[in-house]
């Protein structure tokens, strides 16, 4: 029953992903990509990964859309591909094969939420049991991200910040 809540969202996700690739004009493609991020964030929220959902909403739906648009208005708005379309046949055969391989490999993974899987036997219980006492945060993902590996997150933020500044500088320069 709980699983069926995600089905409409997943359908929308696939629709938007396909739409963003298939649309010829690039401005609609950017907007479709923005809505794709919205749905992806909703799916993350459904799975309980609130922080990932938040980052997806911030970066995907907010920042990326604006940056894509800024870039598009400085360059051409039409999809002018550089490579010839003769790869199309190869892609049509190769990509489904690759997908099949990945699905085949995923068969061997432990089930979603399996208590006996290796990942949830050794490390996870320690954090699951102690995080509320250690950090007073109700969400374990948040406490791991913001407390146990706060330094790592800080450096990541610095990297993203630097990238943002670089983007702003590059985009601002061509204005003159």
């Amino acid at each position: 029953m709980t699983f069926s809540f995600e089905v409409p969202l997943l359908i929308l996700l696939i629709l938007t992903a396909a739409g963003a690739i298939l649309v010829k004009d690039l401005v609609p493609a950017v907007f479709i990509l923005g809505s794709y991020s919205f749905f992806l964030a909703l799916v993350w929220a459904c799975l309980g990964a609130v922080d990932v959902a938040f980052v997806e909403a911030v970066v995907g739906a907010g920042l990326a859309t604006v940056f894509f648009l800024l870039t598009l208005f400085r360059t051409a708005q039409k999809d002018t591909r550089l490579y010839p379309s003769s790869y199309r046949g190869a892609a049509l055969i190769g990509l489904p094969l690759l997908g099949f391989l990945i699905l085949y490999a995923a068969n061997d993974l432990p089930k979603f939420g399996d208590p006996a899987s290796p990942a949830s036997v050794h490390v996870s219980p320690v954090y699951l049991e102690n995080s509320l006492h250690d950090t007073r945060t109700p969400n374990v993902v948040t406490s791991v991200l913001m407390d146990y590996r706060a330094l790592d997150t800080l450096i990541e933020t610095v990297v993203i910040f630097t990238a943002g500044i670089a983007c702003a500088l590059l985009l601002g320069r061509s204005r003159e």
Partner: protein
Amino acid sequence: MKFFFLFVLIALAVLILVYLYRVVQGPTIYDRVLGLNGISTKAIILLVLIGTVYERVDMFVDISTGYALLNLVGALAIAKFLEQRGSV
């Protein structure tokens, strides 16, 4: 009650399709901005709805607050930029 919430969720997903059509088809870029805006309002409602179903409203409301604020920033940035650019 859970069945009713599932019904509302699917109805909202179908409504999102309509806005998505506006995003894809919209003749001017402002139509697309409006469509995205409508989708984000639906997303806020959906988040609170999902939170109600999972009985974790306190957590999901925080994300939807973030959504609402981000949506404002994004929409304002796009509108400001389009205004400066001054063409359709």
